[in-house]
């Protein structure tokens, strides 16, 4: 059980990125976190994983508890040892290390005997990683890097997995595979916090979902409830569009705060 209690976060002295956000992740559940750019989703995950100091940020108020123990004062390494694992936004794989070494790094905090089994499982979930085992991480394609990032976190056999926009840059088929992978991981007893722009996928696999808006938790409920909510439909699911043209139109309307684009004339040299 992971619970975030009224947490506020600041970056530096001025930026207040979260205000009194509370969230419970009960054992074995999948919680989706939705929200626009800059809403504070990543910040929430950092608050849990203890990496805020690396970004000059700090929890200014509130607590984070894992199985009843306060973890908001711990450093990331201690939190990882509690098997709370975060897959950071934007992959952040070790670009200079091979795929294999990336996975080894992922397994550093877990007992040596479990590592081989964990690696085999990662290769099973993401076969392309086995094929590219000796390739340098930085040379993988974007999607392959994303798979590596997830696989690396799985090496520590997490109890709670925090995923930050895992579907970024993944092909559609892989996005749906990702959904099923999250479910598989969850079925094996891992709780998952899933931060996503792809609300369709996220709500498809989550039990519970919350919406963040500029640092405030504005909406929460079971995934089914949220799918039905109008706000969600409009902002995150692109409406019930019949055709693409309609979807575009609907989305443009939803974004009506955007000004009309001026015409770009050809340059006359």
């Amino acid at each position: 059980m992971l619970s975030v209690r009224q947490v506020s976060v600041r970056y530096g002295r001025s930026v207040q990125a979260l205000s009194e956000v509370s969230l419970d992740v009960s054992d074995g559940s999948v919680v989706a976190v939705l929200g626009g750019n800059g809403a504070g989703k990543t910040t929430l995950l950092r608050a849990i994983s203890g990496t805020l100091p690396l970004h000059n940020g700090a929890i200014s108020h509130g607590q984070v508890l894992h199985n009843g123990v306060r973890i908001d004062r711990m450093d990331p390494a201690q939190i990882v040892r509690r098997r709370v694992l975060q897959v950071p936004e934007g992959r952040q794989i070790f670009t200079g290390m091979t795929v294999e070494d990336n996975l080894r790094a992922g397994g550093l905090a877990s007992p040596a005997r479990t590592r081989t089994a964990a690696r085999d499982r990662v290769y099973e979930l993401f076969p392309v990683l086995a094929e590219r085992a000796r390739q340098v991480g930085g040379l993988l394609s974007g999607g392959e890097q994303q798979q590596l990032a997830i696989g690396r976190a799985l090496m520590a056999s997490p109890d709670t997995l925090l995923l930050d926009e895992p579907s970024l840059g993944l092909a559609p088929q892989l996005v749906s595979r990702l959904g099923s992978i999250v479910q598989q991981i969850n079925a094996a007893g891992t709780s998952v916090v899933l931060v996503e722009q792809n609300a369709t996928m996220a709500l498809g696999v989550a039990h519970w979902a919350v919406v963040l808006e500029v640092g405030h938790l504005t909406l929460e409920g079971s995934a089914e409830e949220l799918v039905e909510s109008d706000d969600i439909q409009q902002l995150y699911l692109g409406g019930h569009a019949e055709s693409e043209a309609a979807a575009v139109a609907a989305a443009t309307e939803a974004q009506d705060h955007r000004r009309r684009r001026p015409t770009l004339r050809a340059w006359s040299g």
Partner: protein
Amino acid sequence: MGAFLQVLINGTGKGAVFALLALGFVIIYKATQVVNFAHGSLALFGGYVVAVLKPSVGWWVAALSGIAAAALLAVVVERLLLARARFASDAGLAILTIGVDVVLLTEIARRLGTEAAPFLGDPYDVRPIVLGGVTIGRTQAVAFGVAVALIVVFFVAFRFSSWGIAMRAQSENREAAALMGIRIAWVRAGAWAVGGALAGISVLFLATQDFSGGGLSPATHGVALAAFPAAIIGGLTSPGGAVVGGFVVGLTEAFTAQYVSLDFSKVAVYLVMLVVLVFWPSGLFGKVVQSRV
């Protein structure tokens, strides 16, 4: 032929000491991406401690204390200064070590005063082994043995422990490494401790009559400059490379001194380095930094 063999031995002996210096330099660089301009001062500091303690506690205790002191100082520099300069660039950190270097060098030189330069190699200094026509400085022989032993130890450590992986991981991406449960502070401080200890060991050979003709003096600091080309020739990211680089430097110096001119030998080291870099832009064993879009 006699001269050739003698030169080979001289060069190898020097190379071993350069290798020790370069190894420490590379380990620090690999773990923290810091070009440690204070490496010579770490050595000097270790040597100073040995010189101060030797008369009262004897060579062995003094030597061990010196190594420990150099390691400790390295950790202090890392924890107290580098780790706190969180927003400095890599170049900024390198310059910070220059500041450290200036302070240490000035203060140690001041403390050394006008006394005779202390010599640190009591058990082996100026007791050459003569084999046939060639003379082997015992310092060189011991340095070679120590270098080989340490190289094996590090090879094993890198190969069979997670230390190497943790070191590389956190030097590449601190946040991701933290999220892998790697104790960044430990890894970094550990690498500096090892680098400092290696500097502390090498000074026991540097400040000898056999190796440099002089005792511990600010000049010892200058000799440590050879760690630069050695580390680069081997490839900054490769501890094994550092060792090879050390020997390349030692041998190049010895052979050009004999067969071209003494004067030219230092330039020769750098010219060899340039040639290596033109063909292997990241050194002989360095990792080629690849990127893609």
